[in-house]
């Protein structure tokens, strides 16, 4: 959905936005452009100095003229050096800043986008928007524009210089110019198209490595190594062909341009030679012309390259702006309230919700929880338990109805007010790379080591961490490797405990933890849950025994609601689930 399918047309609105990125640096930019034009001008003077040396110095045999020519030459060189220095540093500064601005803007946008956006968008896609596309836009704005201006000014000034010096010979030399430009554009288009397909395959290769590495356990356990390697070889085979094709294209293009340049020199020699013989053209002029014909190639090439890149850059810019313009589905109201401790009364009022519009997951969901209550959610898998919590966290907003805390719609609150008072254990625990201690501390950034230790003790994690060779300083890789699954769950539980929340949410927080440890956690949790509202989602019914109330969720509705005793007495769904688990043995 996201890739490369963008208009081929030149889109001025995109470019207007691109150039708006420059507005903080517009004076700098103007300065760079002036320097570039001066540079292009100075460049044109060099062959003229040589002509002067030949015609006024060498031919009549005047040493003093040669000396003057040499000093002129030196002067030009030094001037050029200063221009180059200021243009490089100016260009780099502006470019780097524009790129950093874009990165920051995309990051800020990602911060405000809702979870639904991340459900749909692969991480790799976002990464390349933020890094390579931003880079390309910034580079084209600075280096690309500079190359273009330099090429255009340089070429026109050369043409002017030649026409002034000898217009007939100039016309002969310039006759090849359209050809050079035409061929350049022709090839650059194709070369860039080639690069584009190389890049596309390249990102497939990166994705291949990525998924292969992440899923290596699955691959190994299903013995897919050979099959995967074979598929990968097809991919690298395509890569080989595409890159050789585009390399071959460039190695046709450059020599052709060189031959045209040489033809230009040949034309100049042929026409100019007869002129020299006839005495209508000086030798110096001829030499200068030869040198001009060979300098043509560079600017023409630069112009064609930038020209070809424009389409690419436009596509990059469109993708970046698409991300920047993406509207978060869940937003903070401008006058959202930021203050206030949560007491813990929670209400779901006629809530409807679906991840996509067509399939509702929650249907007219109603629930009231008093402060300090512990509520258990049970029910078949896929019935919407996690979804209920997602709504309470405001990861998503209900399509209809409202979620209220302490009688206020949570849409009236800032995210910070809402979430900073919640302690959440998500069903899929995610640990960051870093030490065990850092991971627990994520729940409360200013927690002391003692507090971290206490939290770990409360969830039965402490002993095990102490047994590790480096204890709390054990470094985990992203995702919490190499700990066992239960250990990871305990860390993410400790993280939530440390947060000292008003509302506790535990979504299958101990599903992979043994019952013994679980029991210990339950003992601790009398104290842990005191004065807090808590939601516990569990399939293992022993987990929820301290709940004040049990809700059975089925197909997005509350099917049963009551204490263990009441539900057992009803002999409904809960009774069935319960007896399957405990009566058999």
């Amino acid at each position, binding site marked *: 959905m996201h890739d490369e399918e963008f208009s081929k047309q030149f889109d001025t609105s995109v470019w207007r936005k691109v150039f708006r990125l420059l507005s903080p640096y517009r004076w700098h930019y103007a300065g760079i452009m002036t320097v570039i034009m001066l540079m292009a001008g100075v460049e044109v003077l060099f062959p003229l100095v040589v002509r002067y040396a030949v015609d006024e110095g060498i031919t009549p045999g005047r040493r003093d003229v040669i000396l003057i020519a040499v000093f002129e030459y030196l002067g030009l060189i030094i001037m050029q050096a200063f221009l180059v220095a200021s243009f*490089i540093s100016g260009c*780099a500064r502006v470019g780097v800043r524009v790129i950093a601005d874009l990165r920051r803007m995309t990051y800020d946008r990602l911060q405000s986008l809702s979870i639904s956006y991340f459900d749909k968008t692969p991480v790799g896609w976002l990464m390349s928007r933020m890094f390579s596309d931003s880079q390309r836009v910034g580079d084209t704005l600075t280096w690309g524009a500079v190359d273009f201006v330099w090429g255009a000014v340089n070429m026109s000034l050369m043409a002017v210089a030649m026409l002034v010096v000898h217009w007939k010979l100039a016309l002969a030399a310039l006759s090849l110019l359209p050809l050079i430009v035409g061929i350049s554009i022709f090839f650059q288009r194709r070369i860039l198209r080639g690069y584009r397909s190389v890049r596309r395959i390249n990102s497939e290769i990166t994705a291949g490595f990525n998924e292969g590495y992440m899923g290596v356990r699955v691959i190994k356990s299903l013995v897919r190594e050979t099959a995967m390697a074979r598929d990968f070889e097809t991919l690298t085979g395509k890569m080989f062909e595409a890159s050789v094709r585009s390399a071959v294209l460039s190695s046709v293009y450059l020599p052709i341009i060189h031959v045209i340049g040489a033809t230009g020199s*040949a034309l100049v*020699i042929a026409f100019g*030679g007869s002129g020299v013989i006839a005495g209508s053209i000086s*030798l110096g002029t001829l030499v200068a012309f*030869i040198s001009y014909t060979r300098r043509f190639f560079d600017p023409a090439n630069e112009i064609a390259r930038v020209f070809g890149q424009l389409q690419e850059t436009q596509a990059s810019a469109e993708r970046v702006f698409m991300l920047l313009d993406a509207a978060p589905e869940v937003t903070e109201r401008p006058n959202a309230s930021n203050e206030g401790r949560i007491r813990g009364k929670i209400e779901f009022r006629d809530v409807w919700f679906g991840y996509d519009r067509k399939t509702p997951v929650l249907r007219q969901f109603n629930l009231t929880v008093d402060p300090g209550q512990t509520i258990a959610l049970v029910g078949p*898998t896929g019935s919407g338990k996690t979804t209920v919590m997602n709504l309470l966290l405001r990861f998503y907003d209900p399509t209809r109805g409202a979620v209220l805390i302490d009688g206020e719609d949570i849409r009236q609150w800032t995210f910070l007010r809402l979430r900073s008072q919640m302690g959440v254990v998500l069903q899929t625990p995610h640990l960051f790379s870093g030490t065990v201690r850092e991971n627990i501390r994520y729940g409360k950034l200013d927690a002391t080591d003692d507090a971290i230790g206490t939290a770990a003790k409360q969830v039965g994690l402490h002993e095990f961490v102490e047994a590790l060779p480096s204890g709390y300083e054990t470094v985990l890789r992203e995702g919490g490797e190499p700990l066992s699954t239960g250990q990871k769950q305990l860390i993410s539980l400790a993280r939530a405990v440390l947060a000292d929340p008003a509302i506790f949410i535990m979504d299958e927080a101990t599903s992979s933890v043994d*019952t013994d440890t679980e029991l210990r956690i339950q003992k601790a949790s009398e104290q842990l849950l005191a004065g807090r509202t808590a939601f516990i989602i569990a399939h293992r019914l022993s987990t929820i025994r301290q709940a004040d109330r049990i809700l059975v969720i089925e197909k997005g509705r509350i099917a049963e609601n009551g204490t263990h005793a009441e539900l057992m007495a009803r002999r409904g769904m809960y009774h069935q689930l319960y007896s399957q688990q405990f009566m058999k043995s």
Partner: protein
Amino acid sequence: MGSLIRDFWNLTQPCRKAFVLAAVALVAATAFQLVLPWVLRMAIDSLTARTNDYRLIIMLASGLVGAAAGEAIFTFLKGKWAAEASEGTVTHLRNRMFEQMVRMPFSAHGTVAAGDFIQRATSDIQTLGRFLSVQVTEVARTVCLLAGVSTLMFMMQPTLALAALALLPPIFLFSMVIFRKIQKRFETLDETEAALSSNVQEYLTGVRVVRAFAREPYESGRFRELNARLVREDIALSTLHAVFWPTSDVMCMLQAVIVLYLGGMKAVDGDISLGTFVAFNSYVMYLIWPVRQIGRLLGEMGRASVSMRRIREILDLPREADAEGAPEVESKRLKGGVYFKHVSFGFDGQKVLHDIHFRVRPGKTVAILGATGSGKTTLMQLLLRFHDDYSGAIYIDDRDIRQIPKDELRSQIGIVLQEAFLFSKSIYDNISFGVDQPERRLIRNAAAAAAVDRFVSEFPERYRTVVGERGVTLSGGQKQRIALARVLVKRPSILILDDTTSALDTETEAAIWSSLRKWLSDCTAFIITHRLSTAAAANKIIVLDKGRIVQQGNHEELIRQPGHYRKLHEQQWAKMAVLDREASRGHARRRVQ
């Protein structure tokens, strides 16, 4: 340096022919290139001599075009062959990296973080490719030019030739020195960039946790700091560039000026012809820019050698050892008898499993219980030969598993991993991932047995539904069931379920068990679970504690002995009994009312 060259030499092995051809074409192209100024010289000389030979001029002009055409043809050939050679090498290297990735033992995966590995497999290989296709040929071309040009110059005028070459060594040295510096800056810049991108990457994969804890400001602070650091380092680097390019420009042009001046003087004196003067000017240009580049290229070679080292490190990691010297047994379906004989195992010195000893007859179901971190997952990994460095021995059907080729072994053991990982493909593709030619019916049946069809039928796109990365758009239990179906499709002789039903409600679980019994009537099953109800139904229960087997036997036996199992059971029952009493009381009360 020596080892670097050797590494590269070995690397180019598969494409050496193309490399040689490219080198030959390169020399030819350079030769033609050198002809151009020479023709120019003859043309101008004939003009100054006023021989007024018009035919000669036309001839020379066409000679010019001819030489350019010759150069063009060989440059093209060089480009083509060099691309084939370098791309071929790179392709080969990529394939080797991928092979290595899937064939490395698990322990090796632990030593390289994912991001780091991807970096090596992609951008380091690219750096090498660039080195081979651009830098190597550029250096070679410059060397050829240097040899050819200096010979020609000395032929034309020795003193002027000396003067024309005078500044080349300092230019070369200068650019070497600066590029060493630039290189260092580059490396710090690279590191910062890598830090920034892994920061963003982790933010994005953990975005739900970041949001749940309202840590956006904290994350944003870290990002801004790195972003600003990258800007600073980038600017510092460009300052070096801004010093280097104009300074070396001046030096290069100075060299041109020397030729201009001395040549001009000599031309005035009549020591050299005007044509020679012009030719000298061209030849000098041929040299000064490439020499400046070569300093830069040598500087960048450091980069390539770092990349080479990083790739080497991966390729040098061991691959999973296969059954060496195994007697040739034709592969047949395993019956599934398993025997662990005094097995002990640990990760780098830390013992995880101690003296594990048990036997399972074919077709039986074994439940494994035990505390978190007691080594259940590790135990099963040994059976699949994910780790081979244990003491003791493991037998399947009386064959030491170290004598069974890994592929054969694993294709008959189906393990559903504890953390369900799904690929971001369609549900159908995920289920059929394990087989070469997926058979529609088989896949449907496996999906039905794993109770996948129960929920898939409610998705608008059914089996074609594409799941989010790592399965984020599915519920926990849905992921587990797809992972189960994926394994069932293989029809394994030994099935291992590592906590596979932890996210399933008991009803779905029961449905799955009953269909599994049909699906795998003759299959040995290991079931790791924390649910006693699941364990109770097994033929044998093994209770692990801190890596030791503390109890084994069936439910009836274990419930009678005092010990771990009974304690667990009582714990559950005691509490439940209280609740049940309350329940029945409630029931009674309601009846009374």
